[in-house]
């Protein structure tokens, strides 16, 4: 009996080794057991093409890309419900702002053992967005450091210096209004995730990890400083208050009633596509700084996350690393989605040196390449960001009507977030 059991164990062990070997050999496509199949949900332009490039050169690991709705527009809800139903994909595009929420919901697969070796290929602050406690759950694809987009023609005509600090920005704001009473320097950032970029830069974190509990610090003094700055510009009538991403704002960009936008790298296409009438007149400068602190904010960017239940986490990680670092894949993503790559090799791509005609021939991505090294590393997203962001959006939405301030919005979001975290069973410490 014992003998038979031992033999069975040996057979099982051999079979398992065999499987493991085929797993390794699968990339060459010579094994008989068929390729590893990996499903990948995402929405960004260019992903499908990168997947096709991979599938051509890697017959042993076949990735099946399925385009879904943009995360914030229902994509994340689809992933959450799929995870609940047990039909989640192996890989999913998840923005950094939502990554922590998926992590805290226990939906992501720890792939540290497969990814750790290549960690050095990414800047530290970026890698910090795809894990916690030294563990890794995905691979960063792109980042979105912020910059100052401005109407070079109008600034020049009015002889206003392009502001380098927030103090200079306030002076410039007053000068713009003085030069043309109908115009303002910028639109008030009332979108919660856009506003987060300013808090990020201002060394005003919202969340942190303290041992085994979360900390929420949206009502900190550092946050009050950033909030107070924007409230000040609004109270002095130096900014417009159109809804974020609204046609009214685009019209104002086009007509020269709003002269600048401090926004993430993807604002480049947002402005280009929505203010076609002012082509060639825009330029990009570094984001204004807080006094002497040479750091910038980030607002956006996403990762390829490995979801729990994935049958081939190693192969999935291998693909995700390839998509973010391989030259053909990264060049494709830069070209079709105008992303700023997260990996160091991707950042070195010459595709980022192209002059942009909309920006008067300025090679704007060179600037963002340099700025991406200066992103403030002390930022962590919270575990239930959809609640935090809607609460903050609700609060900031009231600012233009005058019925609430930036500080009110932060205070109520702090309370709402802590309540939501506790209701869901997270531990929260002060």
């Amino acid at each position, binding site marked *: 009996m014992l003998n038979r059991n031992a033999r069975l164990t040996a057979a099982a062990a051999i079979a398992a080794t065999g499987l493991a070997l085929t797993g390794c050999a699968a990339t060459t496509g010579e094994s008989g057991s068929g390729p590893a199949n990996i499903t990948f949900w995402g929405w960004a332009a260019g992903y499908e093409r990168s997947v096709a490039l991979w599938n051509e050169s890697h017959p042993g690991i076949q990735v099946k890309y399925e385009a879904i709705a943009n995360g914030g527009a229902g994509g*994340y*809800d689809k992933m*959450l*419900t799929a995870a*609940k139903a047990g039909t989640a994909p192996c890989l999913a595009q998840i923005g950094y702002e939502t990554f922590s*929420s998926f*992590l*805290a*919901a*226990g939906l992501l697969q720890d792939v540290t053992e497969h990814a750790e070796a290549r960690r050095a290929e990414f800047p530290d602050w970026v890698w910090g967005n795809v894990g*916690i*406690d030294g563990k890794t759950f995905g691979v960063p694809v792109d980042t979105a450091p912020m910059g100052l987009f401005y109407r070079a023609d109008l600034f020049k005509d009015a002889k206003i210096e392009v502001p380098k600090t927030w103090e200079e920005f306030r002076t410039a704001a007053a000068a713009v209004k003085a030069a043309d009473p109908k115009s303002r320097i910028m639109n008030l950032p*009332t979108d919660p995730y856009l506003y987060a970029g300013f808090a990020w830069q201002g060394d005003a974190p919202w969340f942190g*990890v303290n041992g*085994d*509990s*979360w900390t929420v610090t949206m009502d900190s003094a550092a946050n009050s400083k950033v909030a107070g700055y924007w409230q000040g510009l609004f109270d002095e009538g130096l900014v417009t208050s*159109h*809804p*974020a*991403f*609204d*046609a*009214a704002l685009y*019209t104002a960009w086009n007509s020269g009633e709003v002269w600048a936008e401090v926004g993430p790298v993807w604002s480049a296409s947002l402005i280009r596509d929505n203010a076609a009438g002012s082509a060639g007149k825009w330029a990009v400068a570094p984001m204004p700084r807080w006094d002497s602190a040479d750091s910038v904010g980030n607002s956006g960017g996403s990762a390829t996350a490995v979801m729990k239940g994935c049958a081939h986490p190693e192969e999935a990680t291998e693909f995700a690393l390839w998509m973010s670092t391989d030259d053909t894949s990264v060049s494709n993503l830069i070209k079709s989605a105008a992303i700023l790559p997260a990996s160091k090799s991707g950042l070195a791509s010459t595709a980022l040196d192209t002059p942009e005609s909309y920006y008067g021939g300025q090679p704007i991505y060179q600037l963002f390449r340099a700025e991406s090294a200066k992103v403030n590393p002390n930022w962590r997203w919270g*575990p*239930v960001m*959809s*609640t935090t962001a*809607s*609460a903050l*959006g*609700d609060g*900031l*939405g*009231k600012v*233009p*009507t005058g*019925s609430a301030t930036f500080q009110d919005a932060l205070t109520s979001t702090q309370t709402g977030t802590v309540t*939501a975290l506790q*209701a*869901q*069973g*997270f*531990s929260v410490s002060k």
Partner: protein
Amino acid sequence: MSPVTRQRPGRVRELRRAAPFVLPFLLLFVVVYLVPTGYSVVQSFFAVKRSGLGLGGAETVFAGLGNYARVLQDGDFLASLGRVGFIGVIQVPVMLGIALLLALLLDSSVSRGRRFFRIAYFVPYGLPGVIAALVWSFLYAPTLSPIAGLFASIGVDVSFVTDGALPFSIANILTWAWTGYNTILIYAALQAIPEETMEAAALDGCSGWKAALLIKVPLIRPALLLTLVFSIIGTSQLYNEPVTMKSVAPNLPSTYTPIMAAVRSLSANDFNYAAAQSVVIGAVICVLSVLVFRASARSVT
């Protein structure tokens, strides 16, 4: 043999004959209605327990009425119920009043171009709700609105998206979209009134508006009741219009209506609480519908 047992074979045969007609409906009713409802009710009695940062995954535990206690303490959710109640109390009577008036006009023997108006009234209903809300959003958007622009040119400052104006702006979209639909329902009921009844009324000297209000309206009471219940259910489920308008009215909170609040819980991965919220919405609608039916049944008898 008792009469009851004698009846049995007949009923079984009847049921067997009816089965092919009823089963497809029953099957769909069970699969897309009863099962999800039951699942939501079950989910609403559970809660997810996490510990620390949540990385260890979650454990589902029985929570009894815990989620319902949370609903009752959720100020945002209760406010959303109040808001929709307010919109409904204003909008439903106005809409049904207009619908009844239009239907009576269509039905009246002196009106012309009936076929045209029948279609014209119905057209807004044919437009998908989100598209209609988008178009209205442009008409409401403070800097783009041609209506606000017109008022501004004569020196009057009008905004459709202030906190105070929002319920009325939304009620206006609902009225625009659904009046025609209700008009057609009421008109169909008017058409079913026997010609002789109206002739008899005319002989007795009752005609025109008097006949419409005193004879036609009481006769179509069941249709009016039906439109009332449909409207109450529809307004309780308000979602498309406010969500679409949020892009031009950032001051519109993300928990404006009960369904928006439930969707927000779902996005927060708080499925069990979202289920409890949904069950409460369903229960409120159910109770309201029963009350309306009951009240009207009493007044008819």
